[in-house]
């Protein structure tokens, strides 16, 4: 209840659109309605399909990146060990 009252207070303070550019309409009230909908969708996915795509991409890149990094790091470590194990003889 308190949260809704506070949200209403913010809407009341919204500046009336004086935009001279045609394409800048005040879409804040619609966004407020969208993000205050009482569904169980978490905030980071509540914006729509783009949210889900971005989330999945970020997760895949970070976790996958970690796996890749560990692999790359381990591969290089073993390579360096191999090089170190066979020292070049000075002629």
């Amino acid at each position, binding site marked *: 209840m308190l949260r809704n009252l506070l949200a209403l207070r913010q809407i009341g303070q919204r500046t009336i659109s004086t935009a*001279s550019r045609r394409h800048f309409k005040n*879409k*804040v009230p619609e966004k407020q309605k969208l993000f*205050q909908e009482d569904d169980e969708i*978490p*905030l*980071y996915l509540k914006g729509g399909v783009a949210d889900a795509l971005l989330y999945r991409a970020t997760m895949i890149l*970070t976790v996958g990146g970690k796996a890749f990094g560990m692999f790359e790091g381990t591969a290089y470590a073993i390579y360096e060990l191999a090089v170190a194990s066979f020292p070049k003889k000075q002629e």
Partner: protein
Amino acid sequence: MTHQSHAYHMVKPSPWPLTGALSALLMTSGLAMWFHFHSMTLLMLGLLTNTLTMYQWWRDVTRESTYQGHHTPPVQKGLRYGMILFITSEVFFFAGFFWAFYHSSLAPTPQLGGHWPPTGITPLNPLEVPLLNTSVLLASGVSITWAHHSLMENNRNQMIQALLITILLGLYFTLLQASEYFESPFTISDGIYGSTFFMATGFHGLHVIIGSTFLTICFIRQLMFHFTSKHHFGFEAAAWYWHFVDVVWLFLYISIYWWG
């Protein structure tokens, strides 16, 4: 629907701290791979995932505040404290570089010739581009104040203009400094002079870029009607950060460019 009986913001669970931490791991190990094994893949991946995390994390903060109304006065107070503490930590960060500079320049060793600037170094003329840079940043401090007052007085178009001027001045500074770096007769590996000069001015330049980015985000948000005349903490935080960047430059100019 459950409701809270207090004015504080109990943040919902989010995946961005995890992806942020993972991206930090990728960036740091990426740096090691780049330095020692000449591979930039991991570093690039780290930078990309870091950017993705920051974008989504702060997008969610905007959703929580502008769209869901969670930033009540007590919450805003906490955010103000947070920003002030963060800027204070950055002050200490720069203090380290200034310490290093003064340590070496107040008592120049015999190896440097016993004087500062050291033998062989031709310092930049402080009355040329560096002075222009100073005026550019000072002017940007004026324009951002103009933007703030316009915002508080509900003057939308003037706010947009003033903020745009501020951002352009920031960009101008960055371009000028980049050209200075390119034309400089000395490099970072030119002894302690080069090291202290480029570490201090380099990190400052990075902060100008960060500040300009923050201001640009505020510009976009202003275009999208996010700010009201009474509630616009994101903009205030950006303005504080920008003033901080300006002040650091003034110290740099006086210490390194002029006195040094």
